[in-house]
């Protein structure tokens, strides 16, 4: 009877882990003003604990989170709701055989051929620049800044199209590096989310 746990609100789900026996892994939010996060699976298959431990470690490395026992949080104490979900999903994509390294604050933009660079300006403020083809620079910088704003729930700085800031006003270099990889193509992320959320919804025969 009742083996389910009161472990907080599930805020993200990997419905089938491609790297470990297709188990489902949830990211649960606990706490009030200072949230902490739990990576949990209801599977009792052998090796689950190791897999969850790997994902936690990946979130520490990729997202710059801190670990206390089985719980994760950001040093700033903020939730960073969208960013922590993205960190969890990206951590789940990594094979346990792969090495874990923080993503750099620069990334090659395949669409434009530009090298996109994000520079820390202190107090959680980040500035996007681009190296390469002058023609596409301004547009891509704006796209990436907007992408970071969306993925990290950062605010765009008034009068600037190249600067974004975390609401906590604290630096998150690793997290920003992680988001930078996805920021040039937020539409792909949205499509991925839409596909994930439409899976598993039973439609009437007339809608199939």
């Amino acid at each position, binding site marked *: *009877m*009742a*083996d*389910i746990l009161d472990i907080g*609100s*599930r805020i993200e*789900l990997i*419905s*089938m882990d491609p790297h470990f026996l*297709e*188990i*489902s892994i*949830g990211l649960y939010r606990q706490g009030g003003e200072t949230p902490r996060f739990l990576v949990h*699976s*209801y*599977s*009792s*298959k052998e090796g689950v604990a190791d897999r969850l431990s790997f994902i936690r470690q990946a979130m520490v490395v990729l997202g710059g989170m801190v670990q206390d026992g089985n719980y994760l949080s950001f040093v700033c104490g903020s939730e960073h709701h969208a960013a922590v979900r993205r960190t969890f999903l990206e951590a789940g994509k990594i094979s346990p055989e792969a090495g874990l390294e923080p993503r750099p604050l620069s990334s090659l933009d395949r669409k434009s051929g530009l090298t996109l660079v994000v520079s820390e300006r202190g107090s959680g403020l980040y500035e996007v620049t681009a190296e390469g083809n002058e023609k596409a620079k301004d547009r891509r910088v704006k796209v990436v800044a907007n992408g970071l704003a969306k993925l990290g729930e950062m605010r765009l700085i008034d009068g600037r199209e190249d600067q974004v800031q975390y609401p906590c006003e604290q630096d998150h270099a690793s997290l920003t590096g992680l988001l930078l990889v996805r920021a040039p193509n937020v539409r792909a992320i949205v499509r991925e989310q839409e596909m*994930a*959320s439409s*899976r*598993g*919804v*039973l439609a*009437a*025969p*007339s*809608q*199939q």
Partner: protein
Amino acid sequence: MSDVKEMKPRERVLAALNRQPVDRTPTCNPTSLATVELMDLVDAPFPQANRDPELMARLAATGHTELGFDTIMPVFSIIQESSAVGCKIQWEQKDNWPTVKMREPIWESLEDIRVPTDYLLHPDAQCVIEAIKILKRDYGDEVAIIGKTMGPWSLAYHCMGVEPFLLLSLDDPDQTKRILDKLKQITIEFGNAQIEAGADALTLPDHATGDLVSGEYYDRFLRDLHIEFVEKIPIPLILHICGRTVDRMEYIAQTGMSAFHYDSKNKPQESIDITGDRVSLVGNINNPETLFSKGPEAVRDEVINNLEAGIQLIGPECAIPLQTSIENLTVIPETVKEWHKN
């Protein structure tokens, strides 16, 4: 507070299906409550849990043991008997639903219909029957076990394809009626086989859905058949039709069905204003926007909305999305219990 002494879940559900007094409103899932996390919890993942009776029963039982519903409903999908009569099935993976390949229909017209004589012995029909036996053995005294038998309109979609069957209904209503009449034997036989196995009630999905089929169509093609099902399947039947269906609720109320499993596109109050005490209502809690996408507070609001309208049984509108959070499901019975305390 009710004056009725405390009931067991099974008594409570059966009383509500018959619109008799209950100690509190029952929570009831005429369709699936399976989620990927519950599959992990009891090691009974899709698609295997649709094909192995032990797994099917184990996963279904979590609706009561883990979520606290008053019912257990093991027939997660809508394809079991269609598979048994020969439809091609896309079994999918753990996180998606098996579906009939309706673009590869097995029959085109009345003359083509050949229901295999031994279809009830097919593993996908037997799986349901055996799962119900297991659940009856393990929970039968306590919890209401609900089976499922598909109606002829849904079976026609599966066996002939949605578009061809709808076009046929326009071009040749007489043949359409004769097709439905022929397919009804599957509904009756599969339903009665589940009764023999121990089912307390049956969900009868017949997808004359609000988006494609009008209330007038329901009256013309299905009302009399549904009356016949009530006569020939001797346990409470819960008719399930998705979509906006207020235009046919009057007809449904005339069939003698015990309950109508209704969609969130219909408001609770406008629905019960039509059905009154002629048929119980169950369902209405929105799947994609509420149970899947929002939090427990939004679920609680919808449960209370149904309770305040006097809806007889509380539950989700249809098979819940497989990624639904457990928290959003346990809040349904919790809210019902809290509401009755106040």
